[in-house]
């Protein structure tokens, strides 16, 4: 089967999955969560006020119409207005996406490059002292709370040394750069421990395979074996691992954004949760799901490029 036909069909599969996501979102927000009018008007609202607000928000219509509203928003990305800021949600998302992506995208890419390079080194020196130090380092780094890195980074590099901005954001290149460097570095450091440990495990799994012995018997050097034979086989689990992390890029780094007061999607979502701003939470839920679905399609396509055993079906 052709790769294009396969891709097209996988993209069509998105439709039923998205309808399911909408159903879950609808169920969570309409059936399980408390009456939004109570949250918005407080405990002392009159029945009449509540009726009015319900009509205004469209909550008096039959449930399937409300469900269709969610479905419509999922496909058109028109999520309506925020309850608390009265802004167009799509505009808010567009505004928030820029700070989020300028922080997360470079950090994500750098983090991958750095972690995989270190793990290749570690795998090359497996069983030797360097490997042991690296593993010890990984586990120690994973054992420290992420808050410690953030607070130490802000105190030491921001306050003591005065190297980086620790709060706020400015739109436009290169104005944003000073604001994302420190959170970016902390992002990378936070990923280092678990990532190196994971990649090392994957690489070592491959190093003890029979085909590696064959490659050695052919006269290949260790580095060629590692970079050509082992890495290509290891890419399959690594791709899966990477793609699972991508929705975090869309949602932004909740913790880092709030600690560094970066007005990104993560901060926006946190504020929405605090304010019970349902339309915004709904929009972010749907958006994350859409991202997840699309990237899982991309993962499958990547598999077919890396592993010839994966058939297009």
């Amino acid at each position: 089967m052709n790769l294009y036909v396969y891709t097209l069909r996988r993209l069509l599969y998105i439709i039923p999955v998205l309808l399911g996501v909408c159903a879950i979102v609808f169920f969570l927000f309409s059936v399980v969560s408390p009456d939004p009018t109570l949250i918005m008007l407080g405990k002392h609202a009159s029945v009449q006020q509540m009726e009015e607000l319900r009509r205004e928000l469209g909550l008096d219509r039959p449930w399937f119409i409300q469900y269709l509203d969610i479905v419509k928003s999922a496909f058109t990305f028109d999520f309506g207005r925020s309850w608390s800021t009265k802004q167009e949600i799509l505009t808010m998302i567009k505004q928030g996406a820029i700070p989020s992506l300028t922080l997360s995208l470079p950090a994500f890419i750098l983090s991958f490059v750095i972690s995989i390079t270190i793990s290749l080194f570690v795998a090359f020196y497996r069983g030797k002292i360097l490997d042991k130090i690296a593993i010890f380092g990984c586990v120690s780094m994973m054992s420290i709370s992420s808050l410690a890195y953030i607070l130490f980074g802000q105190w030491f590099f921001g306050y003591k040394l005065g190297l980086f901005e620790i709060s706020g954001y400015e739109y436009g290149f290169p104005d944003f750069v000073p604001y994302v460097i420190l959170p970016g570095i902390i992002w990378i450091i936070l990923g280092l421990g678990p990532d190196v440990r994971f990649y090392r495990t994957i690489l070592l799994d491959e190093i003890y395979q029979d085909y590696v012995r064959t490659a050695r018997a052919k006269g290949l050097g260790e580095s060629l074996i590692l970079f050509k034979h082992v890495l290509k086989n290891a890419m399959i689990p690594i791709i899966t691992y990477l793609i699972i992390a991508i929705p975090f890029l869309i949602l932004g780094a909740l913790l880092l954004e709030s600690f560094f007061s970066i007005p990104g999607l993560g901060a926006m979502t946190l504020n929405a949760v605090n304010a019970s701003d349902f339309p915004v939470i709904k929009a972010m839920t749907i958006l994350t799901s859409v991202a997840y679905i699309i990237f899982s399609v991309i993962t499958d396509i990547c598999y077919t490029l890396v592993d010839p055993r994966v058939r297009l079906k």
Partner: protein
Amino acid sequence: MSEEKLLEIRNLQVQFNTDRGPITAVKGVDLDVYKGKTLGIVGESGSGKSVTALSIMRLIPDPPGKIINGYIKFKGKNLLDMSLGDMRTIRGNKIAMIFQEPMTSLNPVFTVGNQIIEVLDLHQSHLSKEEKKNKAINMLDLVGIPAPEKRIKEYPHQLSGGMRQRVMIAMALACEPDILIADEPTTALDVTIQAQILELMNKLKEKLGMGIIFITHDLGVVAEMCDDVAVMYCGRIVEASDVSTVFKHPFHPYTKGLMESIPSFDSTEDETKARLKTIEGMVPSLFDLPKGCSFQDRCPEAIDECRGKKGPPLLEEQAPGHQAACFNPLK
């Protein structure tokens, strides 16, 4: 003798460090490989035959393994003294190896052609891209793979086990090595495919005139394939000679036991009804070897001397050109 000696192994000793202390998997092995001849190494699992083969390629995983004594001279040069870089110019080029597991020995994510050409890239870099590709096709043709110009673009998972082993052989022979080490190359294959692969190897030996080290646990295969044979038990060679001599008159009870455990078609009716003979007992653990001969507990001929403090018997000439390590050799 006008035979050209390609490989001379003397007193090879290989040790593995385990959690339970060091064990010596190969305890002083002597072997010779001649041009155009096949040497069979026979033994049960754990006899040290594969470790011996991997030592020749210097592919013993280190740690935990280490060659602690002896030499392996290839055309007069000791492989154990060579730098790793020099060793790589030997591997796959002068000495090639094929393995027991054809299903997993090829890299699943590269095409068959790519993997054969890789050997040529390493050892015959003077060839042009086109020449390398043609050579790869010729090699596949040589090992009897139909439509080689199509197969070259296929991945290992598209081939059967027998075909994969043929690809391994093609890859191993791509640089016309002097020695081919075959570590149980047919164990994982169907019997009919096994016969085809053996026939192919014999044909290629004639054609290319290399020396073959053939490792197996099957004396029947040795009879078909080999000129010389060395029987290994617990890291030592217990009997060695040319194949017909050993089959005619084995000196070591272990060799005899192995021969009797081969099913035979031309036995009389009474014999067919009788159960196939087996060697009683199990191979002792290398951690817990008995004093004296390692085979004593399973040996029907064992005498006091075998259990004595003399240590294990040495490999000695029992008849001209026929050595065995036994205190009480069969008459």
